[in-house]
């Protein structure tokens, strides 16, 4: 059937949260996952290359429409938002450590960064970019931190695998050492 793409477009349009494959399959049980994936990819590339201000991306485990960066200014004006707050370098470093070493304790973050990271962790907790996922079974039972779904959404990542992997990191390191 050729009406799969427009159907998907309608479903994503009406969804406020990123639309997951599970949800799509629920609504369209007669379609295979491969079929849906292929249609979504096609739809996304149509939006991306077409004369549209909207793009279709995979973020936080689902599909979602967003505006293209070129239309930031008018949208901001409409919403009456001056500037978005940015994370501090300390918060970004702490997030990087937690993302790669999760679940991580505060002392672990501190030993990698070389500086006390308690304040940064608190900022991240407040912004719900990390969460406490339990305690480590070690002396002092230190709290364990993990990144959240909001962390993925905030950076437009679909999953943690979208972060640079070991091989890519090594390449960048070697290039820097040359």
């Amino acid at each position, binding site marked *: 059937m050729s009406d799969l793409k427009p159907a998907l477009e309608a479903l994503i349009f009406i969804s406020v949260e990123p639309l997951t494959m599970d949800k799509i399959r629920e609504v369209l049980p007669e379609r295979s996952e491969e079929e849906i994936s292929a249609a979504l990819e096609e739809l996304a590339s149509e939006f991306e290359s077409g004369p549209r201000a909207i793009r279709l991306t995979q973020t936080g485990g689902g599909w979602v*429409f967003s505006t293209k960066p070129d239309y930031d200014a008018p949208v901001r004006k409409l919403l009456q938002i001056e500037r978005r707050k940015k994370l501090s370098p300390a918060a970004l470093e702490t*997030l990087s450590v937690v993302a790669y070493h999760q679940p991580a304790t505060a002392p672990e973050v501190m030993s990698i*960064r070389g500086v006390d990271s308690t304040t940064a962790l608190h900022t991240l907790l407040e912004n719900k970019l990390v969460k406490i996922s339990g305690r480590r079974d070690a002396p002092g039972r230190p709290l364990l931190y993990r990144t959240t779904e909001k962390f993925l959404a905030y950076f437009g990542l679909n999953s943690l695998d979208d972060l640079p992997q070991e091989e890519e990191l090594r390449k960048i390191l070697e290039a820097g050492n040359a």
Partner: protein
Amino acid sequence: MTEVRDPSQEEDQPVPPPEPAEPAGAAAAAEPAEGYQVKLEFFEGPLDLLLFLIKKKKVDIHDIPVAVITGEYLGYLRTRDRINLDREAEFLLMAALLIYIKSQFLLPREQPLEPDVDPRRELAERLEDYRRVKIVSARLRDLEEEQSQVWRRAALTAPLPEEDLDLVEVSLFDLAESFFAMMKRKQAEPPKVLKGKEISLAEKMDEIVAALKARGVLDFLDYLDAQETLEEALVAFFCLLELIKARLVIAVQEQLFHAIKVWLRKETKDEAP
């Protein structure tokens, strides 16, 4: 330390802006050959400063000229006439480590170092790990910048009320935050005469469990608000924390900034007589 610096190693490369507000005297004397000095506050920590120096000297992270780098590093610390221990203890710790490594090379030994033991190795590994962190945070910074220009509908419309709400178990911080917000509100209320009633933790806990069994669900703040005195509210708050810790009740928030609700856990309900 300045005597170890080889002038031929000074190089022109893009660096953070010069520091015109350099304090005169000892600070300037520590770095006479440099036309600039980046402030210590510019760095995220001792590892960041070390990486900067290593890059500036264009040396290999695994083959650091310890004397040169230690000299440069100490030059930075000397720019401070006094060290704020809260903020700069980590910088001092690293200075001690660098001097220790340097001493490993300088001091005579009874047995020579084994060829494959390099006193710098652990530091090199830490620097390497920290460089990864820097790479990833630079990537996150780019993504953040990109995302800050991208807008989704979710930002405009509140999620539609659904029957099956996605409940999030709240953390201790959320509870404490709500509690303190309420206490602040209470403070504004006119003072009441204290009745001098004694409330025991155990009694209050029974009272809460009984109320939960009768009503099924409690609004966390309303319940505390309904307490007659500050003391009673405090006791009730501790009881709730105690019950949550004992996993007898569960505290959930339907949406961010919405009311926190408290339930008995299912198991507790079942075993209730």
